[in-house]
């Protein structure tokens, strides 16, 4: 069976005036159908850029980039876009402040010409644990957790096989983060979703993902499965440093 997402030698370069930044330098990985793949790294490591390149939000170069067995064109068709949907970090920034929840959810349905819009909207809201009364509210009338639920509902309303998540919980409190992570893992099982999750938090990635790529300076340092990561069975120093740092502060012996 062909992997759901297969990337070989991905490069992304941003040029700004005379300077250019080689943000992603030859990244390759593949994600099987139904797998959840994590990418961790610190700021500037290129992790979010990889995700944007996969979704076609920014131009990239690669030897091959296939989604569901088909090469992804630089300009994605509507059908391509229906294959994968994106959830961003800050739900307040990614929801239109003057659109109600209903309008936000209706838009992808109209773009893709789907029928039974009301039914689908109601169902999407129920799936992410929102109540019918939330449907006609504006983003500012919702809490941070509720907003992120709307963003997830909007992503899933097209029933995409692939869900891309860029730091979906880093703007949220721990208790709300737990609810959203549980929601994502429940939806993943119910809909047999393939997931790529980007985060700086090793705990979050390990909680949701089977396999994890560690990125630094635009390259993948190593790819490990979660059990090996928790057990510290890693080969690279940088990964070890990340694991140690995420366990908290260690006082030097005085």
């Amino acid at each position, binding site marked *: 069976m062909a992997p759901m997402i297969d990337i070989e030698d991905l490069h992304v370069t941003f040029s700004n005036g005379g300077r250019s930044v080689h943000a992603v330098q030859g990244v390759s990985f593949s994600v099987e159908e139904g797998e959840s793949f994590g990418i961790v790294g610190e700021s500037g490591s290129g992790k979010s850029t990889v995700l944007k390149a996969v979704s076609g939000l920014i131009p990239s170069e690669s030897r091959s980039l296939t989604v569901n067995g088909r090469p992804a064109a630089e300009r994605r068709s509507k059908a391509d876009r229906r294959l994968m949907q994106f959830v961003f970090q800050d739900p307040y920034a990614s929801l239109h402040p003057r659109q109600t929840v209903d309008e936000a959810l209706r838009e992808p349905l109209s773009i893709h010409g789907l029928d039974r819009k009301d039914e689908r909207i109601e169902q999407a809201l129920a799936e992410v644990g929102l109540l019918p009364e939330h449907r006609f509210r504006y983003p500012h009338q919702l809490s941070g957790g509720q907003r992120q639920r709307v963003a997830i509902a909007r992503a899933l309303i097209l029933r995409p096989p692939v869900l891309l998540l860029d730091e979906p919980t880093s703007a949220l*409190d721990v208790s709300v983060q*737990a609810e959203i992570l549980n929601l994502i893992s429940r939806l993943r099982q119910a809909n047999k979703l393939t997931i790529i999750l980007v985060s700086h938090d090793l705990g979050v990635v390990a909680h949701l993902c089977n396999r994890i790529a560690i990125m630094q300076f635009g390259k993948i340092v190593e790819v490990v499965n*979660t059990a090996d*990561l928790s057990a510290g069975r890693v080969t690279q120093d940088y990964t070890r440093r990340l694991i140690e*740092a995420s366990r908290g*502060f*260690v006082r*030097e012996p005085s």
Partner: protein
Amino acid sequence: MSDKLLTVENLNVTYPGRAGVTHALKNASFELGRERLGIVGESGSGKSTMGRAILGLIPKPGIVTADRLDFSGKSLLTNTDRDWQKLRGRRISMIMQDPKYSLNPVRKIGDQIAETCRLHLGSTRKDAEQRSLAMLEAVQIRNPDAVYNQYPHQLSGGMGQRVMIAMMLVAEPDLLIADEPTSALDVTVQNEVLRILDRLVADRGMGLIFISHNLTVVSSFCDRVLIMYGGRILEQCAAKDLGEARHPYTQALIAATPSLDHPKAELATMVRDPAWLL
């Protein structure tokens, strides 16, 4: 030397509003010696309000009342603006979360640190410069002379936060309040900054109030921890005993945190009990 740096008894911060009075802080009491005290809580728990109230920085129409709010034996409640000026930045300093918003973008780093020396220590220009350079070195900035003449936008987040620490510590305060000092930083940088803070606090015998939403950081860095929720201090315990915390909220916070070392299929979600706020 007395061990009590700060005594807080029944500290209240209230904001009057159309829908009644909001208690941002309700009957908070604790004592601080020359130690590292962590304050943990989620957004809206009142942890930052606590830091600001101690520094007299609650904006109008906020009202601060307390049975006692003593800093090294002297009440802060009767302070005039002039008293506060002598205290802030000199004996009590505060480090904010994001250096991007706390440093003046159009002034050189060195001048901003030197200003503290000239204002609070009455240093001469020459002396202020020397102290600032020494302080930049103490926070492990590799080329202090170059950084002295740079502007904030030329620094990375980690460097900026070190500059903030340098600026706050150059007047050698007795109490340092750090409000989420490392939350905007990468984990590996975070630990370097914590290490610098830790050493300076230990060497100079300062008291430290460390405000954070991150349980892992607080429990590994601090001596003692206050857990806050809805403007109340729910629990106080030694940081190393946080795992055996008794309050259901603290337990729920720990259970809700995804951990690399203790993977669980489902994270525990919190059932908030209105009784916690009584």
